[in-house]
């Protein structure tokens, strides 16, 4: 293969592989459906439905976390970002990985020891139940909504690339099919089925990326330097190897980049669907093992995306990628087609579809659990609802959220999905992280502090996004032809995260009520020792 020439990838030829793509995807759906059915046989209690009976091992859960985390945003978005913007795309993956240290050191084990099903369990442990639970549930729903939007946007661009469907109705139909499948998984399988889908998908995704990475490196004699050289040559711009191509243009964009960095590193440990995964293991030690597994798998995968991104730049070319249906997000599928023809493209596309399906399933069950467990069971029926009624509400919520996700997906446009996910991270880091950290480590923290921090962080993040160039006033904005972007940055993190920490502190020092010190003692002792933490129920 001639290394210096950029070979043309015939985008039109991709349509011929549609049947193959669909075949591979259908196989994945069939296999996972069987597993979900088998796994769901023992779903009886709320712990079974929300937390998979706490019966997964650390390594299984770690793989599932990687499956949850390595969403379409990571695979399609980061590969595309590196292919187009070079080094600046790589910065996403570093933030996404380093963030796991916050989860490992400060959150995972303590959370496993103090909670039961949802993030709100931990946040409301020693504070007043009602206000804190409602706030935590609302922020959970908000984060899940943004994350769902990103996944569905990814589904849209993937469909337009693979099926050559560019008309609105056709894309909508496929999104409806994907959404309906996801509802099935979650309804039938609960957390156990969802977890198995994540595990299978993580293995396929990481294996697929590994094969592609090896193929790209083999073309360049396993010499990273000559791959980079070829990418720079193909781009006709040596700056793709340097930081600053995307974010270095102006002082505002540099600040935007700092804001993104902050949101990425502090967001992970506050994502409700990641936090909920820690309840599927029996002990804090297994929760720790989960994170360790996840860190290794995720780190390895991001190293692959570095090679794949520059590989796509060198072998496919930025111009071809940008002009393909699906745009930036099509870099990885196009590279797969270049490397291994229709079969590899079919495999990679099916995996990417599966990724969206699995992540959407994980988000849906998190949102449903939060609504049923926090709002319905603890607030509306004040803890008097039995577990059966609660699970019934959860299942109904799944259908509602599924329908909302389908509608969101139909209307979500072709923004880079890594970028949309970064917004979800900003909302999570602003609304959740300060309260998680304060309630685990700050003795004097009060209900008022928690409520101010959560609502303040949530409102600040969402308002700043609404008045940012993401929504209006720029070429790529969601609402075209309008300009009410009074906030210059695309990512709100640099303002909303410190603000939420400040509000948590302010609310606490101004609070005249004091929290029960016995509850604080109980939470602290439980969190560090695991006393009374609910163990596995299915052995």
């Amino acid at each position, binding site marked *: 293969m001639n290394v210096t020439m950029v070979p043309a990838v015939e985008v039109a030829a991709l349509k011929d592989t549609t049947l193959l793509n669909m075949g591979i995807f259908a196989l994945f759906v069939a296999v996972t459906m069987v597993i979900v059915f088998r796994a769901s046989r023992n779903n009886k209690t709320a712990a079974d439905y929300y937390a998979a009976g706490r019966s997964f*091992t650390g390594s299984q859960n770690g793989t599932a976390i990687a499956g949850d985390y390595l969403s379409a945003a990571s695979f399609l978005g980061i590969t595309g970002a590196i292919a187009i913007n070079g*080094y600046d795309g790589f*910065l996403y993956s*570093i933030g996404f*990985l*380093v963030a*796991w*240290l*916050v989860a*490992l*050191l*400060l959150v995972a084990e303590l959370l496993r020891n103090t909670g*039961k099903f949802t993030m709100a*369990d931990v946040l*409301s*442990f*020693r504070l007043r*139940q009602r206000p804190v639970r409602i706030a935590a549930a609302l922020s959970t729903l908000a984060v899940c909504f943004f994350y769902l939007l990103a996944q569905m946007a990814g589904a849209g661009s993937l469909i337009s690339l693979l099926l050559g469907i560019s008309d609105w109705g056709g894309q909508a139909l496929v999104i409806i099919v994907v959404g309906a499948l996801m509802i099935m998984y979650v309804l039938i399988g609960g957390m156990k089925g969802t977890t198995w889908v994540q595990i299978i998908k993580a293995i396929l995704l990481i294996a697929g990326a590994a094969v592609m990475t090896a193929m790209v490196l083999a073309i360049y004699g396993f010499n990273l*330097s*000559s791959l*980079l050289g070829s990418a*720079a040559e193909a781009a006709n711009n040596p700056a793709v*190897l*340097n*930081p*600053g191509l995307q*974010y270095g243009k102006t002082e505002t964009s*540099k600040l935007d*980049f*700092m804001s993104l*960095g902050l949101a990425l*590193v502090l967001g992970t440990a506050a994502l409700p669907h990641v936090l909920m995964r820690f309840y599927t293991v*029996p*002990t804090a*030690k*297994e929760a*720790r093992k989960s994170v*360790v597994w996840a*860190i*290794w798998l995720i*780190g390895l995968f991001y*190293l692959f995306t570095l090679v794949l991104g520059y590989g796509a730049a060198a072998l496919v070319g930025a111009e071809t990628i940008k002009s393909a249906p699906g745009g930036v997000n099509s870099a990885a599928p196009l590279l797969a087609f270049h490397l291994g023809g229709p079969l590899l493209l079919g495999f990679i596309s099916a995996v990417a579809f599966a990724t969206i399906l699995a992540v959407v399933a994980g988000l849906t069950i998190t949102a449903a659990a939060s609504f049923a467990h926090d709002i319905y069971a603890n607030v509306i029926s004040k803890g008097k609802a039995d577990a059966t009624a609660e699970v019934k509400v959860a299942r109904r919520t799944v259908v509602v959220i599924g329908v909302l996700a389908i509608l969101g997906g139909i209307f979500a446009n072709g923004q880079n999905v890594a970028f949309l996910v970064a917004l979800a991270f900003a909302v999570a880091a602003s609304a959740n992280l300060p309260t998680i950290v304060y309630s685990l480590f700050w003795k004097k923290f009060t209900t008022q502090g928690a409520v101010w921090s959560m609502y303040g962080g949530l409102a600040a993040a969402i308002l700043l996004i609404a008045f940012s160039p993401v929504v209006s006033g720029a070429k790529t904005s969601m609402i075209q032809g309008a300009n009410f972007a009074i906030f210059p940055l695309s990512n709100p993190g640099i303002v909303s995260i410190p603000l939420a920490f400040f509000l948590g502190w302010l609310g606490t020092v101004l609070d005249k009520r004091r929290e029960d*010190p016995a*509850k604080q*003692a*109980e*939470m*602290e*002792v*439980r969190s*560090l*020792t*695991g*006393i*009374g933490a*609910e*163990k*596995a*129920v299915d*052995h």
Partner: protein
Amino acid sequence: MGNEAHPHDAAASVDFQEVQQTEQFRTLRKRHRSFVFPMAVIFLLWYFAYVLLAAYAVEFMSTKVWGNINVGLILGLLQFVTTFGITAWYVSYSNRKLDPIAAEIRIGIEGHQFDKDGNMIQGEAK
């Protein structure tokens, strides 16, 4: 709420404030915090130093070191190395310094032990 969230809890009748004041628990808390807090500060500073360099020291980051591999790429890959390193270090620290003492306190209160899957070895299953 703790007691409500754990209805059949062996630990429901424990005076946690008393436990919190014991020498053993204070040692555990000190060991945990004296590791995780400094470590969190270190890796966050290192990460933000890297992000600042990438935003404001583009020329330095673009310095070629070996072939087409520049300082920025090396620092980026070092972020991976330190993340893996801190992870391994924390696991070894917890296994040596945190888990044994946490298990002692737990056994002292609950009066039974759990195997690695969380099954009770002795005592009454829920």
